[in-house]
């Protein structure tokens, strides 16, 4: 067994919401460095809200986000991105009339590296998603649902993050593509990228990740190593549905 690595990110008592509506009620969560972590939970549990809080789109009303000893609460998305956290939001949110390549380049907007480095990453995204290469001049808004998802993930990869957050990883993707994507993420992870995925398909989530958290009603209700959770009867009955049972 590997020695548990040093925590990358540590959330304590995060409360956040939209205006007067509170959604997160004190979330505590620790991400290990260099791991793939999964976050699962029913619709409306607050998963996306938590992701938005992490990337600075929402400012939490209480709690602390600890990143290498620094509190990220209240920092702007740009500052958080500069620390190395990239967020692939739910619903893709592509720049719809920009073409695919420009969308990907926007991912590298905040990087101040030479063009060649950015170019290399671009080629890697194309290698991961050959379909995107075929469509590189097409306006992102006219891509099919699944192609858009690829473009969004590719755009996240382009910011060369240390932690990549992906909300709704497999949404609308074909089984084959999910499989390929999982492979791609694993290989990125092997190169040192930490990943946090939100995923509705619990089996995929648990197979991909090393550890996982379960969220409900704005709180973390369960956590552990993915392999163990996979066999947890409570999880199986709540989230795997009739077929798995």
């Amino acid at each position, binding site marked *: 067994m590997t020695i548990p690595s040093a925590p990358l990110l540590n959330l304590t008592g995060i409360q956040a919401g939209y205006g007067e509506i509170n959604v997160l009620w004190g979330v505590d969560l620790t991400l290990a460095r260099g791991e793939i972590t999964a976050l699962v939970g029913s619709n409306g549990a607050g998963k996306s809200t938590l992701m938005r809080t992490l*990337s*600075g*789109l929402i400012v939490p009303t209480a709690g602390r986000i600890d990143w290498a000893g620094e509190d990220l609460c209240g920092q*702007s*998305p*740009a500052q958080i*991105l*500069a620390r190395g956290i*990239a*967020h692939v*939001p739910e619903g893709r*949110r*592509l*720049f*719809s*009339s*920009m073409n695919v390549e*420009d969308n990907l*380049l*926007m*991912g590298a*907007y*905040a990087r101040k590296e030479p063009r060649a480095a950015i170019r290399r990453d671009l080629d890697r995204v194309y290698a991961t998603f050959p379909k995107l290469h075929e469509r590189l001049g097409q*306006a992102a*808004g*006219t891509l099919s649902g699944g192609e858009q998802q690829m473009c969004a993930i590719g*755009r996240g990869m382009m*910011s060369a993050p240390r932690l990549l957050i992906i909300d709704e990883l497999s949404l609308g993707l074909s089984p084959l593509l999910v499989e390929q994507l999982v492979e791609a993420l694993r290989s990125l992870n092997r190169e040192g990228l930490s990943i946090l995925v939100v995923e509705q398909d619990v089996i995929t989530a648990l197979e991909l990740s090393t550890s996982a958290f379960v969220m409900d009603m704005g709180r973390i209700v369960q956590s552990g190593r993915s392999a163990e959770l996979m066999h947890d009867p409570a999880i199986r009955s709540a989230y795997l549905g009739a077929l798995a049972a």
Partner: protein
Amino acid sequence: MLILQILLNAIVLGSLYACIAAGFSLVWGVLNVINLMHGSFIVLGSYLAWGAYKALGVAPWTSLLIAAPVFFILGYGIQRGVLNRVIAAPVLVTLTLTFGLDLILNNAMLVAFKADYRQLVLDPSLGSLSVGSLVVPVDRIVAMIFSLLLTLALFFVLRRSRVGRAIVAVRMDRDAARLMGVDVPSIYATAFGLGTAMAGCAGVLLAMIFPISPIASGSYLGKAFVVCVLGGLGSVPGAVVGGLFLAIVESFGSLVLGPENAVTLSFGLLIVFLIVRPQGLLGKRGFE
């Protein structure tokens, strides 16, 4: 010969139209704001050139160096301070807001400069070039060259620079752009500043050519509208093509149908274009 002369007039005039419209098109296409102050900004630029020439003897093309930063800052400030507050609101709200702001700006100019027409008369006058029986006024050529240069500069800023891409990104999805590390309010303000700077510079150049008065703002705005739609929203090369196209249609329309129909023709053309080709001559389909 008459045909050639009219074509020549149209080409020169068209590039002035392009300069009038480029900034307007940028703000409209990118910020999704129809800036009704655009005409007044142009007039203000003309006053700046007029004042600089009258008081200090500074030639208009030199005044550009002052006008560009001054107007950029003006636009940046207006966007940051006022427009940004409602930037996410529906079309009508921002439009009406700029309408209100324009009332203020125009009234202020009316009080400050009075309504009477002024003219920047270059001394000595630049005269006209003639080739055979064709003539072109030199001041228009100067204005044309500078306006094409300015438009080109704007084009490169938008197309080639990081800021340019960010401007387009913000336009399409604010939150997603924020996630890419874009400082949204400052990008908006930069875009508006660029548009305002273009208006100011256009005004400086036009001061050599057209009489100056706060009242003129309306017709500049009208031209900007038409050119922008003809060329394609937010497209800088589109502004050039649209400007030329409009000038040619107006000039030949005036020849064939009589001058009183030139304005009708341009607005008729606008409607036809909106219907058959809303993306304009150079605009891409799918841009909203």
